[in-house]
């Protein structure tokens, strides 16, 4: 493990020495590469048994979920086992507005879906966030299940069959990009399969992936801004010691509610993405087991580290698809992997760096302790 860490550390030091413009250029290249993944189909990464672009889209969509839930669990320290409920609210809002009971264009339906989930987050959070710790887990679990059952039993929302014919985002077909296929390690340009920039069709998942990835990048940026603001500090204080934070004048309840609602809105956004990509949604898409999977993403990635949770989301979605040939056995292996991870890497794949403030506090405490012993 430490060899790997040293390797990455060495790379980071090297990169840090480069001039600013070169760093920005490298970042841009990396992002471009990620955008082009479904076009390039890199041999080891690509999935043979399912459409690679669709898998990538799922990865991006669930990354969004993980970023949202990371705000709730990682930053604010609230264990939410009903997050799939918000995902469902987002998806069904888009479904209702654009297909079942209206034909509002998606560009307007998306922000409305986020607003609706934000409000639902406040509505669910206001009564429940006063409950602490593990009780919160079961209450949110209950809420997630209530949302699914309400969807299932309300005919206005389509009942068990759900909502179909959800439109794709508007397209502007400009030019075509040929895909690349690989035979062994030689690349060929495949002129037969092309992706039209930017045409959203059911057959081609690549534009959906680009859309999802763009949203992920935007949300990551906003997430970074939030965590480094007064709000982020208030969350950290509340998470570490709620009573102390309250005494220091942090309105902890209001900040917990803010975290809950922000997380919910991001969950709603990813739900909306899911709805437009699938074209049809039904309550079965939103069972409790997804909430469990979402929590697994955040904890596996290292709660509180946005890159950690994103990579965990990508891994947890990509691995079962990559090993689809194992068919039935892959969930068994998934379970074993979770157990192994819990035992051998309990802090998650990429644990968050201790914030500067936390380190300072610890050092000061250490100094006080040392002085104390010196005096005795």
């Amino acid at each position, binding site marked *: 493990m430490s060899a790997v860490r040293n390797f990455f550390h060495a790379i980071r030091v090297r990169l840090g020495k480069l001039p600013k413009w070169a760093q920005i250029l490298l970042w841009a290249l990396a992002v471009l590469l990620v955008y082009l993944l479904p076009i390039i189909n890199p041999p080891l990464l690509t999935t043979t048994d399912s459409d690679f672009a669709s898998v990538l889209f799922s990865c991006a969509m669930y990354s969004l979920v993980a970023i949202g839930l990371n705000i709730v669990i990682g930053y604010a320290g609230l264990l939410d086992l009903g997050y799939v409920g918000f995902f469902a609210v987002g998806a069904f809002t888009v479904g209702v507005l654009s297909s079942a009971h209206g034909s509002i264009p998606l560009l307007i339906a998306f922000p409305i879906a986020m607003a609706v989930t934000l409000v639902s987050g406040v509505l669910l959070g206001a009564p429940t966030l006063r*409950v602490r710790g593990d*009780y919160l887990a079961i*209450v949110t679990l*209950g809420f997630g*299940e209530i949302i699914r059952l309400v969807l299932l*039993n309300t005919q206005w929302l389509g009942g068990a069959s759900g909502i179909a014919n959800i439109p794709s985002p508007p397209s502007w077909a400009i030019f075509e990009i040929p895909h690349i296929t690989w035979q062994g390690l030689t690349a060929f340009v495949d002129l037969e399969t092309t992706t039209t920039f930017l045409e959203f069709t059911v057959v081609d998942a690549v534009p959906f992936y680009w859309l999802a990835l763009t949203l992920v990048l935007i949300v990551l940026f906003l997430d970074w801004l939030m965590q480094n603001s007064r709000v982020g500090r208030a969350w950290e204080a509340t998470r570490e010691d709620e009573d102390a934070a309250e005494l220091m004048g942090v309105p902890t309840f209001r900040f917990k509610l803010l975290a809950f609602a922000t997380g919910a809105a991001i969950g709603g956004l990813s739900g909306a993405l899911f709805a437009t990509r699938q074209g049809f949604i039904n309550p079965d898409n939103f069972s409790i087991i997804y909430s469990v999977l979402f*929590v697994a993403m955040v904890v596996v990635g290292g709660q509180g580290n946005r890159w950690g949770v994103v990579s965990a989301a990508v891994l947890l979605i990509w691995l079962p698809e990559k090993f689809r040939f194992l068919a039935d056995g892959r969930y068994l292996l998934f379970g074993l992997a*979770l157990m192994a991870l819990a035992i051998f890497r*309990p802090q*998650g794949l990429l644990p968050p760096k201790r914030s500067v403030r936390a380190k300072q506090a610890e050092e000061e405490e250490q100094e006080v302790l040392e002085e104390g012993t010196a005096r005795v």
Partner: protein
Amino acid sequence: MDLLVNQFWALTITGLAIGAVYALVALGYTLVYGVLRLINFAHSEVFMWGSFAAVWVLMGVGATNASGMGVVGLLVLGFAAAMAASGLIAIGLEFFAYRPLRKRNSPPLIALISAIGASFVLSEAMGLRDKPFAALGLEGLQEYVGRPRENLPLPRLIDAKPVFAVFNYNVTNVDILVIVSALVMMVVLDQFMRRSRLGRGIRAVAQDPEAAALMGVNRDRVIRITFLIGGIMAGGAAMLYLLKIGVTRYNAGFILGVKAFTAAVLGGIGNLRGALLGGFVLGVAENYGSAIFGTEWKDVVAFVLLIVILLFRPTGLLGESLGKARA
């Protein structure tokens, strides 16, 4: 509403019967929570494995058309099989999924991940149970392990016969059996926790692990026994569930586990009598709710009840922890 009035006693008594099953499974959650402050997410699979063990053993001895004492013997056999299997699985779960974490002082949420992983492993292992047998070429066991994703029925043991009437509802022998056996198990457990040396040890660890260790309580042993007891209760619940419902399947534990955990929280998690009360309240309230709003809203009623109770009594109905219960 008419349905509720007309069927009041039927709803109450069947609610108590299913509530008894919830309560027994809830005990497992509550005990482990009391001692380790951990939601044992995989407890529902302990229950599921117990139910399969009971069905297999009863199929193995050819349990149909027995009468009189034969039925009693088969029932005892079924209980023993379920309890033994569940107890073993629970101990194994503690050994493989939780003990390694405790040794490393992992953060609390990571235990939840290990529990989720173990839950996947246990339920998928049951869902894939035909694979190892097919690989070994043991075709004769199809009856037991074939069609692993389908329902496996309990051999017909006893027919539900009305015994006596409460107002307009005929209480059946199965209802009585389920409720009485659950109550007996719970009274025995309650007395065990209050009076025995081991019970005192468990309560001591629940109250203050460090002080208990200083007083000479072996924490690891106490934890193992706590899991064992939870498993045995889940095994008993599995047998009663089979008598009441009649079938089991590889994912039968999940929803039941969620309900049982709800019952534990409802009564006050960490509190044994609370789990009993929570189970019965949940079972009965669900039934009333489904009579008023329709069966499809049954689970919604259960969860709304939970949320409402937690809002007004944030630590559950009885809200006292395992450690504070007096001997």
